[in-house]
């Protein structure tokens, strides 16, 4: 007897899960457009790899460590390998736990994919696969437990609607650590390394925004008021960010840029992620407008440093997630969210709870990612050689090219494969 399942809620959560899964290939497209053409496939494949690896680790132990039990730091292994995850809802829930599991899995997946933005164009694919598997357990599952699974942040009163802690701040500050450990691309700071297809970037950003309605709108796990509030805020907040970003672009360079607009969409969606179900639509727009400034500033500043955090995951996700988490502490409104007020409505304690998360999550993510990559680096090279980097990661890592012409390509019959890598005209 599964009495507590609500069919409407379940129907929406099935759709929301599919929407969030789509965000990861959308991110792959967004990232692929931002790199040079010789690294298009490798960059896209890092996102696809996140789906492959993180879905499996999540089913094996990640979900259990995040959502089994009320442990302060980490959950148990009671749900490992989906043990006991079936059609009955979790306590207080209205959707089958197996849907809840799938929805949460898509969050783990995209967070792993996000970090790839820091290491594209030089990290070896196999090293990334190992990193993705370990990071999804050691960092994501732990932070998800803290914020969503009844860990010390959630039980202490920190509000995080859709993942400011485990998704946005975790990916952003892990990206910074990854960029530091893996190191800059060989030509970084010496040559202009430009995005090769701005249309991919805009299309990717648009698809991400579309998927984000499932990401935020689904994070109430129902069709209730918090969910529909978050849904609408996901429209309004990024729109406000776009407007301010346009203005900043105009002031700084006299032109509104397309890649800037794509970036603003991501920043706006990230800003509203933690706050979506907790602030009114009016405050959501203010959040979008104000939150544009720090991310814009960090992007401008970062490119002048030696830190090749290539696709600015720290600025777009880490910073905007940090601002969104803190914003709840000021402008949460019980009359809208039914949970808690922020400082502006007389509850200063909420700001303290939010500040705690804003300090703890970045620290944990940065330190653990740094240590994890140093460990992996002790067993296998993290990055391709300079020669391979110059040739391009698509050919070197995957044996394919994104824009292959086929001219001069000779079909190899099965018997010839393996004998092929011989110079036709040996100069020696």
């Amino acid at each position, binding site marked *: 007897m599964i009495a507590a399942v609500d069919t409407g809620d379940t129907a929406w959560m099935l759709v929301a899960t599919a929407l969030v899964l789509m965000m990861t290939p959308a991110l792959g497209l967004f990232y692929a457009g931002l790199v040079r053409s010789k690294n298009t496939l490798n960059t896209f494949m890092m996102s696809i790899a996140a789906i492959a690896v993180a879905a499996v680790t999540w089913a094996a132990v990640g979900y259990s460590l995040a959502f089994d039990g009320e442990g302060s730091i980490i959950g148990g292994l009671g749900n490992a390998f989906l043990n006991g995850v079936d059609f009955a809802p979790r306590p207080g829930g209205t959707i089958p736990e197996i849907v809840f599991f799938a929805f949460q899995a898509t969050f783990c997946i995209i967070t792993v994919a996000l970090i790839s933005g820091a290491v594209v164009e030089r990290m070896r694919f196999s090293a990334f696969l190992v990193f993705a598997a370990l990071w999804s357990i050691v960092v994501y599952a732990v932070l998800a437990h803290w914020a969503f699974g009844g860990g010390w942040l959630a039980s202490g009163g920190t509000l995080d609607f859709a993942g400011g802690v485990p998704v946005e701040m975790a990916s952003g500050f892990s990206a910074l650590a990854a960029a530091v450990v893996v190191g800059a691309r060989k030509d970084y700071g010496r040559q202009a390394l430009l995005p090769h297809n701005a249309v991919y970037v805009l299309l990717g950003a648009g698809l991400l925004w579309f998927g984000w309605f499932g990401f935020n709108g689904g994070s109430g796990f129902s069709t209730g008021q918090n969910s529909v509030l978050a849904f609408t805020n996901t429209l309004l907040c990024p729109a406000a960010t776009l407007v301010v970003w346009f203005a900043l672009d105009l002031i700084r360079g006299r032109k509104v840029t397309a890649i800037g607009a794509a970036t603003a969409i991501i920043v706006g969606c990230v800003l509203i992620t933690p706050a979506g179900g907790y602030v009114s639509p009016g405050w959501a727009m203010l959040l979008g407008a104000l939150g544009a400034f720090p991310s814009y500033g960090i992007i401008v500043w970062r490119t002048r440093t030696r830190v090749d955090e290539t696709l600015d995951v720290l600025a777009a996700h880490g910073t905007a997630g940090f601002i969104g988490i803190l914003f709840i502490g000021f402008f949460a409104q019980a009359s809208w969210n039914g949970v808690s007020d922020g400082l502006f409505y007389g509850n200063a304690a909420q700001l303290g709870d939010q500040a705690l998360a804003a300090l703890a999550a970045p620290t944990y993510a940065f330190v653990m990612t740094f240590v994890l990559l140093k460990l992996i680096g002790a067993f296998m090279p993290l990055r391709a050689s300079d020669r391979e980097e110059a040739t391009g990661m698509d050919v070197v890592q995957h044996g394919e090219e994104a824009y292959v012409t*086929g001219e001069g390509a000779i*079909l*190899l019959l099965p018997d010839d494969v393996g004998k092929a*890598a011989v110079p*036709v005209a040996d100069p020696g």
Partner: protein
Amino acid sequence: MKLVIGIVRPEQANQVLEALHRAEVRGFSMSRVQGHGGEVERVETYRGTTVQMGLSEKVRFEVAVSDSFVDKTVEAICEGGRTGEVGDGKIFVVPLDHAVRIRTGDSDEGAVTPVSR
């Protein structure tokens, strides 16, 4: 007057540009070409179809220079284009009969000597 044709790796094109700039060679054109120069071919696989890519992407510089600039130009392309691996490319220097700057009608040496606008 010579036409210097340098065919280099695309990933070295920026270095060649820098080297030409340092050598004060100002006028040139470049184009993307495909070629084969004895390097080991790449084997790629697309859905079970394995192919040997016979042609590699190259960048072709064409620089028309007066005789006194020929050596500098060749040295610059060599310096910028060299990685030491097979496939770094070739430089060809060919005689040039006649050159005209379209804007002014300057011909020959005058046409290939940069002017300060």
